[in-house]
């Protein structure tokens, strides 16, 4: 009887991994084709529109994207509150920071990449503003970040730091809500948030913090974004919590390791 060695791998005309390779090639082709065609659609030309058609365009966008939760006339449903009277500034904040359209229902909407272009946001804002009077867009000089950073820092510490952390690193609130970090936030959105009081943030109207004071606060936040931290690594600007973690685990760990090494017998 001939010595039967294990059979060699069957060699056909196709490599055994040919099927897998074909699948991957197909996925790339279809994905690439889709990306190419949608890129073509997305690069629409900017259209100059007058005020009335801006409101109309906003209405169409609203019906397509927002009405399922906010009602066809912005009157609100069980899923979303009424938008009558929230003003153009609320829309600029919520849609401009990407919070709306909300990704999933929950205690708070999170900041994410905006889903609309700026002309579309302006159109939505114009339509919502047409429903009822509400906070409108401020004079750009009030969010130019050229105010008094020291005064802004004092106002920030008194009014904002308890939720947003003294360095604007954000903080936790109750039951799944949080105060977001303020790093790299557009000045207009900071202004809008103060005026409109999104979700559970309190309202800081222009009589509580004057527009000049709001500009000072925005100046302080811009200073925080630019200035290097005085004490070295910020560790998230969480103060004693992060520093304590570092010292107790790394610092004390190294000291314990050295103490053990000092008294251990050399091998």
């Amino acid at each position: 009887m001939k010595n039967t060695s294990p059979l060699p791998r069957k060699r056909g005309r196709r490599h055994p991994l040919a099927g897998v390779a074909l699948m991957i090639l197909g996925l790339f082709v279809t994905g690439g084709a889709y990306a190419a065609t949608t890129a073509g659609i997305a690069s629409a030309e900017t259209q100059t529109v007058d005020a009335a058609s801006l409101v109309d365009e906003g209405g169409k966008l609203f019906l397509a994207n927002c009405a399922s939760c906010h009602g066809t006339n912005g009157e609100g449903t069980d899923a979303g509150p009424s938008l009558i009277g929230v003003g153009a500034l609320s829309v600029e904040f919520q849609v401009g920071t990407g919070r709306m359209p909300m990704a999933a229902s929950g205690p708070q909407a999170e900041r994410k990449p905006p889903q609309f272009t700026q002309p579309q946001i302006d159109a939505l804002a114009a339509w919502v503003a047409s429903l009822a009077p509400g906070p409108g867009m401020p004079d750009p000089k009030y969010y130019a970040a050229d105010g008094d950073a020291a005064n802004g820092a004092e106002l920030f510490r008194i009014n904002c730091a308890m939720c947003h952390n003294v360095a604007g690193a954000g903080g936790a609130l109750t039951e799944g809500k949080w105060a977001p970090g303020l790093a790299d936030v557009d000045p207009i959105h900071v202004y809008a948030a103060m005026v409109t009081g999104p979700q559970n943030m309190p309202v800081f109207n222009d009589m509580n913090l004057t527009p000049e004071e709001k500009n000072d606060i925005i100046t302080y936040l811009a200073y925080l974004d630019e200035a290097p931290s005085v004490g070295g690594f910020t560790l998230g600007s969480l103060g004693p919590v992060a520093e304590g973690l570092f010292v107790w685990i790394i610092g004390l760990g190294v000291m314990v390791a050295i103490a053990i090494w000092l008294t251990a017998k050399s091998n």
Partner: protein
Amino acid sequence: MAKKSGGDSHDYSYEPEVGAAVVPSDQASNPGLPPERPRITDMDEKFEKQAERRIALFFGLSIVGSIIAAVSYNAFPITPGDVLSTRLNNLFTGLGITIGLLGIGFGAVHWAKSLMHGHELVEERHPVRGTDETREVAAGMFTQANKESGFTRRSLVRNTMIGALLATPIPAVALFRDLAPKENPNDVLKHTMWEAGTRLTRDPSGVPIKASEVTIGSAFHVIPEGLAEMHEHKLEEKAKAAVLLMRLPVEDLNEVEERKSWSYEGIVAYSKICTHVGCPVALYEQHTHHLLCPCHQSEFDVSNHCEVIFGPAARPLPQLPITIDAEGYLVAQSDFTEPVGPSFWEREL
């Protein structure tokens, strides 16, 4: 019980008296010290050379570190007003010095552990008790001193001396007691700057607040009129008088009958000082009407007179009764009706 004889007895075995407790047959015996383990640097010359090179490396790194520290102090100059230049200078100079010192430390310790004399030495403990002759001499000294001074015999001088020594620290009690503040702390804690007619003003500017400026969902940080201009005891007064002013929709406010007059058209004012340990409670959630203290997460429900709904606080936040004056500015009707802030011993509950 077998008594160890005095002197150099190293007998560790225990022999019980006949008729005493039961002796177990598997009584543990002293195993002695573990056998000595030789070091690898003593056994193999290759490892000895390796250890030598390692120690030399540590010392060499130390030299390099010291040079880095000296050079980088000038290589990263500090320009006034530029925080980053200070950080870089500190970082590299510090790193250089650290490496310089740690290099010497690690090198010296490794030399001692791996290369220096490696045999284990055991030094036996000597017994603490002295010889009987020494003890008799020592006892005799005390007896002689007692006889010569008359300490035991002369009771009058001895007792009056002890009395005088005990009386000496008594003035210290009077002196240190005077370090405490002059005011009765109960009076200080039970009253704040708020009085009938004191206007509510913004923090820190001190500008009075009109009721029409407080819109629904607003949160104003409030200090009493006059605090912004104070110079003496400003922070002590602010620590008791700080108030948070909020406006809720009237239908959301559930007020008890006695306190219906304490708010004004949905505008309510509560002490900012947490009743747990005294942190400022100002994390106001506009829609849930919850007030959170960030320190220990006590939660207060503003729509129900700031009753505690979560956390370690024991009492609701004290409410400041407010109303408006003739010009429409918000004013307090009186001081708080209970002490603000955490509990203290004399506080009436």
